[in-house]
């Protein structure tokens, strides 16, 4: 059963048992005013209404899964960063509260860290969220108020939009559009507009330079990023994530080993991983928010829940970027049988995210001119070489049919 099938069953159930009876009741209660309720009741009883309701359910489930993963990613980042830095990271838990309370109720409270303050600290995220909500939303005096409020909306909505665009498996998908990956990349590229807008509207020189850097960075990584994806599209003959993963699942290598795209297109994989790191703006490519010289760059003037949502949106983008990398190069949800494909997919995504966290806490940030140089002089030629290799491979694979088994493409 697919996610959509499940949602459709749920939609039929809710429409039949709950929504339609309620609307019918309204229609019968006030017959002269039955116009919206009655029409809605008819619509929910029809196929169109049920499919729409099913879509709403599917999108919300995908969104909830994405948001749950967001909390996990933030928590993972904190804990792994802490371990890299020889710290413990957040340890707050409800049990730790109770133990602390018991200590404080005693005669001599000890504020020392105790080994039995057990807890993995995941409620720290809730505490941070509550703190951010209670803070004042500051708008600078001479800022462009409309654009200042629009910047976060553009950035956050385009990032949250990403959550429903990629499938977790061929059955767990809110969307599996024929041009799925193109839509994902287009949604990825909306965010720099929000960055530029909020950087400009803040009326702050640091923010403006941060926004400009974001635009310059977009120019340098976006072209090699899309070119490195072109190789995968050539092999699969489709933009659809489900087709791309199917192609990787069927492709085999020596001794029948699976040949996911990162093996034949290793250059493309490297280029893509560097570019997607720049796309999601993580160290070493977080130039727009360089805290050393630009004081958090374009987010300098934002406070409270806006700043928190910026941070959350960046993690969502990170999660979505890792998901795209998994779909394109790491075989998506393909994996041995006993583990469900969704778990395989999330495992690979988290592997990439943990790798990124390690990178983030072990390397310095590079400079704007260096990322431009990297993008235009090194990654662009490499991605073109990758396309050349893929074209060559697609053309000559029939001659190596006995060792390489690729599906028919052209």
């Amino acid at each position, binding site marked *: 059963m697919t996610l959509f099938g499940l949602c459709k069953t749920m939609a039929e159930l809710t429409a039949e048992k709950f929504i339609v009876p309620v609307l019918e009741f309204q229609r019968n209660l006030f017959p002269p005013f039955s116009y919206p309720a009655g029409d809605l009741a008819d619509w929910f009883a029809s196929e169109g209404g049920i499919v729409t309701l099913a879509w709403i359910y599917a999108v919300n489930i995908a969104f909830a899964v994405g948001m749950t993963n967001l909390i996990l990613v933030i928590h993972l980042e904190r804990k792994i*960063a802490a371990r*890299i*830095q*020889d*710290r413990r990271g957040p340890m707050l838990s409800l049990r730790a509260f109770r133990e602390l309370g018991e200590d404080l109720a005693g005669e001599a409270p000890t504020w020392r860290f105790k080994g039995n303050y057990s807890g993995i600290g995941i409620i720290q995220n809730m505490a941070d969220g509550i703190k951010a909500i209670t803070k004042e939303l500051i708008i600078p005096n001479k800022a462009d108020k409309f654009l200042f409020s629009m910047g976060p909306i553009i950035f956050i909505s385009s990032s949250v939009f990403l959550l429903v665009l990629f499938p977790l498996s061929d059955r767990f998908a809110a969307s599996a559009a024929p041009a799925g990956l193109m839509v994902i990349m287009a949604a990825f590229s909306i965010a720099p507009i929000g960055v530029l807008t909020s950087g400009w509207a803040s009326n702050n*020189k*640091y923010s403006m*330079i941060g926004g*400009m*850097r974001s635009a310059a960075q977009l120019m340098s990584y976006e072209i090699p990023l899309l070119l490195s994806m072109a190789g995968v599209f050539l092999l699969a003959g489709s933009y659809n994530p489900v087709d791309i993963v199917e192609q990787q699942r069927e492709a085999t290598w020596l001794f029948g080993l699976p040949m996911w795209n990162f093996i034949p297109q290793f250059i493309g994989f490297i280029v893509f991983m560097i570019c997607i790191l720049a796309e999601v703006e993580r*160290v*070493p490519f*977080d*130039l727009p928010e*360089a*805290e*050393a*010289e*630009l*004081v958090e760059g374009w987010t300098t003037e934002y406070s409270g829940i806006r700043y928190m949502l910026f941070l959350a949106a960046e993690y969502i983008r990170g999660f979505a970027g890792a998901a795209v990398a998994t779909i394109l190069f790491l075989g998506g949800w393909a994996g041995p049988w006993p583990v469900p494909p969704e778990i395989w997919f999330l495992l690979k995504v988290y592997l990439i995210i943990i790798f990124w966290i390690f990178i983030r*806490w*072990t*390397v*310095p*940030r*590079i*400079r*704007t*001119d*260096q990322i431009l140089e990297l993008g235009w002089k090194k990654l662009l030629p490499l991605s073109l070489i990758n396309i050349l290799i893929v074209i060559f491979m697609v053309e000559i694979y029939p001659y190596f049919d006995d060792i390489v088994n690729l599906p028919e493409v052209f």
Partner: protein
Amino acid sequence: MAEMWISMGPQHPMTHGLWTLKVKVDGETIVDADPELGYLHRSVEKMGERRKYFMNTTLTDRLCYASSTTWTHSYVLAVEELMEVEVPTRAQYIRTIMLELQRLASHLMWAGAYMPDLGHITGALYFWRDRELFLNLLELPSGSRLLYNYMRIGGVKRDLPDGFEQKTERILKLFEQRLDEYADLFENSKIFRMRTEDVGKFTGTQAMNMGITGPNLRGCGVKHDLRVEDTYEIYEEIDWDICTREAGPGYSDCFSRYMVRIDEMKESVRIIRDCFKKMPQGPTMSSRVPVRASGEAFRRTEDSRGEALMYLVGDGSDRPYRWKIKSPMFTTISACPHYLKGYKLADIPAIMGSIDICIGETDK
């Protein structure tokens, strides 16, 4: 983008203290720079004229929070010259050990502060974790962790505690292991070198003309160290070398200035070990320390950041008549327009961090 002035400071992550750097940028390129100092001026020299000679060691401790013992030491040296006090040999050895421990702590503080400038937060925590070890060591004889007030006119406050040598040796061994471990994270890292190499260049001649001293000068390949040139305490009896590095023929960049400090830390470890080997028994305080002094005295020492110059005039009373401190960072920061021009905005933290700013001593 048109050219514009950006004011960095007094509250800015780049400043490492309280000062303002105004930079004129054309896009991201620095066209001009204008440092502004004086936010932290506490008039230490004037305050010292109202206090007795031995009271001033608490003021000199507060000149630089990262390297307080070295500043007290150079004041104490000047007073000893003014009063013509002989310091016992054991006290001189203890002073040397404390100075080098302080230099290690100061350089670690700098290295830890430099890494976030490059966007490397983990480096800060690693180096500051090691600094804690040396603060623990400095705490053992002096009793405090930041402002020690350990150097006294005519000797040191008290003798080293029992087991100090073993503890020091254990920590030094651990520290040396960790420095080797960090080499992969920092100096062998491609991105670290991309950020630091060929950035903030100045030649040795320029540095001498601008009054830049200390590790920043030795980073240009100039073999100049006051511990040898104008030796004090027992540095000439100890087996050690001046560390120099150069990025190219006769000039330094951020990377060579980083490396010269790492080398100096290794050299300090060597000095401390040799001091323990050669340290004699005996008193740690001079038997005769006068209260009044007259005449004038001038001493210069090699601080962690460069040449610390102390000038004292006594008029026969128990308080200095005039006291002048010359800080190495004052000249180095003042020269910053010369080595900032032409680089990118993102290089400002990398360059200004690499010269090891301490505003306490700069503004006095």
